[in-house]
């Protein structure tokens, strides 16, 4: 189904379907809900005003994800330049390593540790793992959004997981 982003009805349909996805992407790159909200708003306004015709809903979604990803990366780069501490963004307890048990409760308590670990990933690993885990894209789709090869996606996803594993294990070690 062809998607015309400037058409109000179409816009509403895309919005309700894609907003949660791009909000997650923006949040898990910036780890600031207010910033993520602003970024999503910005992206959807661009989407509507540009009045682009997409061959399918997925193409519209990928366009929005790419814009949100870029705006989010820009934001964190700016934040880094301003030397703002990411610790301010992170809230809640930073203990209780999830590997003590697999129960949902413990996983939830460890959410902030995971968020912190993800936020500390190098950008090239962070974007692929966020698109994989939080936008639910497959390798081919990630490759399309980031304009890199699928095998590159495969390698980066794997390395992102290795880094996360190492960081979360370190957290575990650090807990007295």
């Amino acid at each position, binding site marked *: 189904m062809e998607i015309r982003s*400037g058409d*109000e009805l179409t*816009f*509403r349909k895309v*919005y*309700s379907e894609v*907003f*949660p996805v791009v*909000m*997650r992407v923006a*949040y*898990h790159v910036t780890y600031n*809900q207010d910033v*993520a*909200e602003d970024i*999503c*708003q910005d992206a*959807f*306004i661009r989407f*509507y*005003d540009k009045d682009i015709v997409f061959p399918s809903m997925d193409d519209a979604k990928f366009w929005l994800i790419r814009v949100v990803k870029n705006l989010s990366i820009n934001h964190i780069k700016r934040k880094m330049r301003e030397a703002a501490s990411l610790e301010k963004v992170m809230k809640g307890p930073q203990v209780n390593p*999830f*590997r003590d048990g*697999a129960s*949902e409760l413990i*996983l*939830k308590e*460890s*959410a*902030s540790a*995971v*968020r912190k670990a*993800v936020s500390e990933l190098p950008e090239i690993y962070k974007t692929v*793992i966020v698109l*994989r*885990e*939080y936008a639910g894209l*497959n*390798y081919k789709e990630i490759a399309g959004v980031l304009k890199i090869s699928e095998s590159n996606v*495969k*390698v980066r*996803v*794997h390395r992102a*997981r*290795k880094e*996360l*594993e190492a960081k*979360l294990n370190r957290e575990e070690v650090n807990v007295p």
Partner: protein
Amino acid sequence: MCLDDQILSTYLDNELSEPWKSQVEEHLGNCPSCRTRFQNLIKISDAMQAAALTEEEIAPRQDRVLAMIEKNHLAKKDRKSFLRRTFKLTAPQLLGVAAAFVVVFVGSWAVFGNNGSINSPILLQDVNTTIDQSNIIQTRSSDNVTTAKSLESYSLDEILKNLDARGYDVDIRLKSIQPMSLDNIGTEVKVIARIKDKNIVITSDGFAKNADGTIVATGVKLDAQKRIVASDGTVIFPADVVIVEPTATAGAATATAGAVSAETTAQVAQAAGQAAEGEARTDVQTPAVN
């Protein structure tokens, strides 16, 4: 040989194709070490899912952003897009719109185009048939390209056809116009002089014409010394080549004139150029009565 982590990661994402997928599954069934590493990967993935922004966290922001976009963009675009909107009309609607334009056009023509009275006869303005300096328009041939079309640029026949097509019953009567005849012209314009050996006549309205009636100079006149001079006083033909003919008519004069040699035309053209102050080409429009 055990599986490396990248293969396990790819398998976890269901991105491994056959036959490797089956081989990995088989190996995981037999190798506790690989199974443990794979379970660690699953835990990382599960932990990430558990840390995901929840729908409860997203929903209020989704509503807020939509409300903002509705207020500032959706409504705004509707307002400003009226002129840019493409009108989609069905055939009967289109006919209706066309009919409305016709009504407006004909109505405005009836009110403004004909002094508000459609039934009054259309009077043609009196045409002054006298050919003199005042009603001769001198133009360059290139002027016609840019001149806007006025009523004068249509022939009476075209005007009648146009009015007929619009459903007007037009009654044409000629007033104050006498049929054109040589006699008529003859009474007004006379050949006042000839140029010796050159087949050129000078008429009373200030033209120098060659044998076929082509005007080769304008604004010329016969002065007291019987010389032909231009409007700025330049002597074009000295008195010794000018033969004054006060009685001949223009029609008779041009009719009796003989052929013009190429040499003569060139010379007169040069003279005309001087007379018209650099205008290489001079066309003369005379009022026509159809």
